[in-house]
């Protein structure tokens, strides 16, 4: 695994607090008013609209074990994908120049002997 993993591998404490606060308030509000909480309430730290990215962020940073596993598995899978994509690009760019494309491969062994 030659990919350099250079992100913080522990969900920061402040993030954890925010997550817990947000989920706690949502549970309280749901209990009191009986309505499903909106994520655009004041307890959300950001004013961005909820999207797939935000949902993925929430999903991955709740637990540190999930976060670290995501990084490691992501690095392994990402490296495979990057390697295969680069190799395909290399082969496409170098058609006809590769060792396998030598037309007279093997002639020296049979011709000279």
């Amino acid at each position, binding site marked *: 695994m030659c*990919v*350099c993993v*250079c992100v913080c591998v522990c969900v920061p404490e402040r993030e954890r607090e925010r997550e817990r606060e947000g989920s706690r308030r949502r549970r309280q509000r749901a209990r009191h008013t009986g309505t499903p909480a909106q994520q655009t309430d004041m307890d959300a730290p950001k004013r961005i609209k909820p999207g797939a990215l935000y949902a993925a962020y929430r999903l991955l940073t709740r637990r540190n074990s999930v976060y670290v596993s995501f990084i490691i598995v992501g690095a392994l899978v990402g490296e495979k994908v990057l390697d295969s994509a680069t190799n395909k690009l290399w082969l496409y760019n170098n058609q006809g120049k590769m060792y396998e494309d030598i*037309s*007279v*491969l093997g002639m020296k062994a049979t011709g000279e002997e």
Partner: protein
Amino acid sequence: MGVRALTGRAFSRIIRRLDYSSPVAQVAAATNKQHDTEDSSRRPSAKALGCLGAGVAGLIGLIGVAYADEAEHGLPAPHYPWPHNGVLSSYDHASIRRGHQVYQQVCAACHSMSFVAFRDLIGVAYTEDEVKAIAAEIEVEDGPNDEGEMYMRPGKPSDHFPSPYSNEQAARFANGGAYPPDLSLITKARHNGQNYVFALLTGYRDPPAGVSVREGLHYNPYFPGGAIAMPKMLVDGAVEYEDEVPATESQMAKDVVTFLSWAAEPEMEERKLMGFKVMFVLSLALLQAGYYKRWKWASIKSRRVIVDVVN
């Protein structure tokens, strides 16, 4: 008059940016302020004249450098469009194979390549059986046998390319005092190596009028000094290629330079691949780092600072 006004005003702006507390700057600023308001007689200060003079002298000195270059370094070689020039371009392996043939049949008589082994060619230009056959053509002296005698044996793939001469003195003696350099790293050992070697091999010509080259040397403008001991070796049809590519002078030169480039930098293809992947990942990391930094700094950059000082 216009030039003096320009230097005077620019100089005064530079002076103003200096520390005002320094007495020199203050005096200069005071005198220049007077000059700015008056539009008439304006004398550029001695400092301005001195700076201008130094700049002009430097520019004149640079001109001489360009003329000294060609006699010392040889004619600069043009930049040829090698197939392996691009960021994601590999060597032309068929060209490496042909180049090895040219080296073996034309160059190996005088030039050694003692850092390249036969087995390095496996998977690059020849199959393993071919390399074994090629290596077996040469004879190598091997260590003492049980009777304590040195003996000759046919070559193996692990042997290095044979040297035509046993040492440098023998090489010099056989070549009129000039040593044919080892070619294992020649494209890295010469400035702009690939283009230089190609230009050198194809650059033999009659010397210009008035230039004479002594007996035993040959004129080549790309060689530093202009007189090279090596005669012109590549002529059309000197070698017959297996794949029936016409063996013209420039074709042979191109193939042999590709072979020499591979010999000097066999790791080039892996290096380019790895470099591409690394740069790609690092650019993603740059985006992540930039976003993270801006996110962390957002609270500081958007705060309001009130400075309430009494002067």
